[in-house]
């Protein structure tokens, strides 16, 4: 079941088309990656989902019905350009914003203290926001986004400004939120994190969705049928003229040969492995599955060439 869908959303700005019939489907309880190069229209789409701005045409549906003014209360939004009151004390500010999101004072305080402990920022409770480093401010912004436990969470570039340790911490929390049943939309340029945490993606380039679906399926569909194998040189070499596969390149590193081969598409992995094992002693065998990074770059440049 899809928690959120957009259908043919169009948004025209003064002299450029920000979104051109964009349709995405975000399944409930899953992490959805909204990808795309800078200026593709991701943030515009998020703003439309948040009802910050209105689409020129098209529709946003939440749980199958058109989204209305009250739906924003189910959304927690972490904008890319972070914003909090600079002169206000951290704790006071967090309680205020949590109360605005509908929590009572005591409940807000209890939940905030739990989160502050978790992120190890309790000592900053009485500091003014402007005294905090950027990473600290990000943590607070993240806490405020999730504090009222909305059904849909939208994170725009959540990892920017974090060191690896804190990025890991944040990733863990995002996965925990998913396990608790929240639906998460996740907009990023960081493809490694997409592979790790997203189940589904939509790739937007120049205002259009150019690729969408399940991450594993997408990666499989981009399979090149190339394999990397390493074998011992003194146990025999691969036959260059084998009808089942083609050797793309080989190099010998102190008795161990690493070869990149391309198999016939109809061949299964086991058949290939059997054929290889008959010729030499295999040390390792792995299929080259394209990374999201490669898919991203290929798709974007392909769609750009198509357009020009």
């Amino acid at each position, binding site marked *: 079941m899809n928690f959120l869908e957009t259908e043919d959303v169009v948004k025209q700005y*003064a002299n450029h088309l920000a979104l051109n019939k964009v349709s995405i489907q975000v399944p409930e309880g899953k992490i959805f990656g909204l990808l795309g190069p800078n200026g593709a229209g991701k943030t515009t789409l998020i703003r439309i989902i948040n009802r910050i701005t209105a689409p020129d045409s098209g529709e946003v549906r939440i749980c199958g019905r058109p989204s209305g003014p009250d739906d924003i209360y189910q959304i927690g939004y972490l904008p890319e350009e972070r914003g909090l009151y600079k002169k206000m004390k951290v704790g006071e500010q967090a309680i205020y914003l949590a109360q605005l999101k509908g929590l009572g004072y005591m409940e807000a305080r209890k939940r905030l203290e739990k989160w502050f402990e978790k992120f190890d920022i309790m000592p900053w409770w009485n500091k003014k926001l402007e005294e905090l480093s950027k990473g600290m401010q990000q943590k607070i912004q993240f806490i405020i986004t999730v504090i009222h436990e909305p059904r849909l969470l939208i994170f725009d570039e959540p990892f920017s400004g974090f060191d690896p340790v804190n990025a890991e911490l944040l990733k863990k929390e995002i996965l925990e939120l998913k396990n608790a049943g929240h639906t998460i939309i996740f907009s990023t340029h960081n493809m490694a994190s997409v592979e790790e945490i997203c189940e589904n993606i939509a790739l937007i380039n120049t205002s259009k969705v150019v690729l969408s679906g399940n991450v594993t399926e997408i990666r499989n569909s981009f399979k090149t049928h190339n394999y990397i194998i390493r074998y011992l040189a003194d146990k025999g070499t691969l036959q260059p003229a084998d009808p089942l596969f083609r050797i793309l390149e080989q190099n010998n590193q102190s008795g161990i040969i690493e070869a990149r081969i391309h198999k016939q598409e109809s061949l299964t992995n086991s058949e290939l492995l059997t054929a290889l094992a008959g010729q030499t002693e295999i040390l390792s065998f792995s299929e080259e599955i394209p990374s999201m990074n490669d898919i991203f770059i290929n798709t974007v440049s392909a769609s750009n060439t198509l357009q020009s």
Partner: protein
Amino acid sequence: MSKVGLIIKREYLRRVSKKSFLLLTFLTPFLFAALVFVPLWLSTIKSEKAKQVAIIDTTGKYAPLFENDEDYVFITETEGSLEDYRNNPDKDIFAFISISDDLLTNPGAATVYSTKQIPMGLKNQINKTLSDFLRDEKLDSYNIENLKEIINESRVSFNIKTIKWEEDGSEKSTSAEVASIAGMVLTLIIYMFILMYGSMVMQGVMEEKTNRIVEVIISSVKPFQLMMGKVIGIGLVGLTQMFLWGILTSILVGVSLFFFGGGTSPEELMSGQMAVQNMSQMPAGGSELSLQVHEILNSINFAKLGICFVLFFIGGYMLYSAMFAAIGSALEQQEDAQQFMTPMILIMVFGLYAGIYSMNNPDGPLAVWGSLIPFTSPIVMMVRLPFDVPVWELILSFVLLYATAILIVWLSSKIYRVGILMYGKKPGIKEMIKWLRYK
């Protein structure tokens, strides 16, 4: 607590607990009090030592006329000539009056010399002394019996009494001067407050916009709630400040009066100031004057004035701060703010000037229209209030002001809704119209 309530509370507490607010609130009444009392106090201080003025009078007729007072001591000089003194200045002597001929026949024969600039006070004193004497001398020269007495008797000082008939037919002394001053003070205060707190609303809106905090808040509150929370919260800060100023000023004035020992009520002190200003027209006779002014001040209904002031402030503030909020939401840079505020400040300044010119004729067309048109009415009406405005005009003005304020708040909230979330591009008319309908 409702969301608007939360926003109001935050806006209010944050501003009221600011050091600058506390400082301004508690120091300004002292400043006001100082403005009233320092001149009064200074005028009571005498110069430490009377200055010496030498009179070189060759006729001998005029020198005895000059009477010593706190500022000047006149010495009749018979020995040295003016030239001696010029060559060997005597530091102790401040000025020299040289009279070399009969002044009635030769008015140019008297001159005052000094190494310093001659103060007006001294010059006036000399002129007065000499002209009084010369006039008497001239009168004597007519040889008419009792002429001096007749002339003195014929000099009538006249100051018309102004009485206002109340509805019930009773009479009240009024004073155009007191009413004008009260009106002017109220006008300036309301102008200052609306401008100050209106632009505070704008700053707040811009802060939220440039901070992008509004994107976070927008998923919890409606833009209208956010705007109203801000407007009301800041308005309450304004009322608090006004209230504190009122109380502190009356306490300070009361305390100072106690030390001055002069009067028993602040009103009387105010009358003292008036008396200084109107010295030329009003005859002396302190107690009578003070009594008169007391009566006049009692004729002004301070409770009514206060209530009207607060109500007009609220209406005017809502009207202007909503517009300020709309402007703030449409801007992205502080630098643009001044430019966009200008038209609104112009309207307010127009109101202020209309108020000032209305003072001479508080029931004239400028005053009446100015106090009915909602954009100027809070300011202009303040001038008219002490002069007793007809009730129907007051009510009409209120209704117009509040109706317009509500309309402007509604319109502004629509602009605010679009503006506060719009970055990087100017909203077109078509876009605006679409937003008016979007919820």
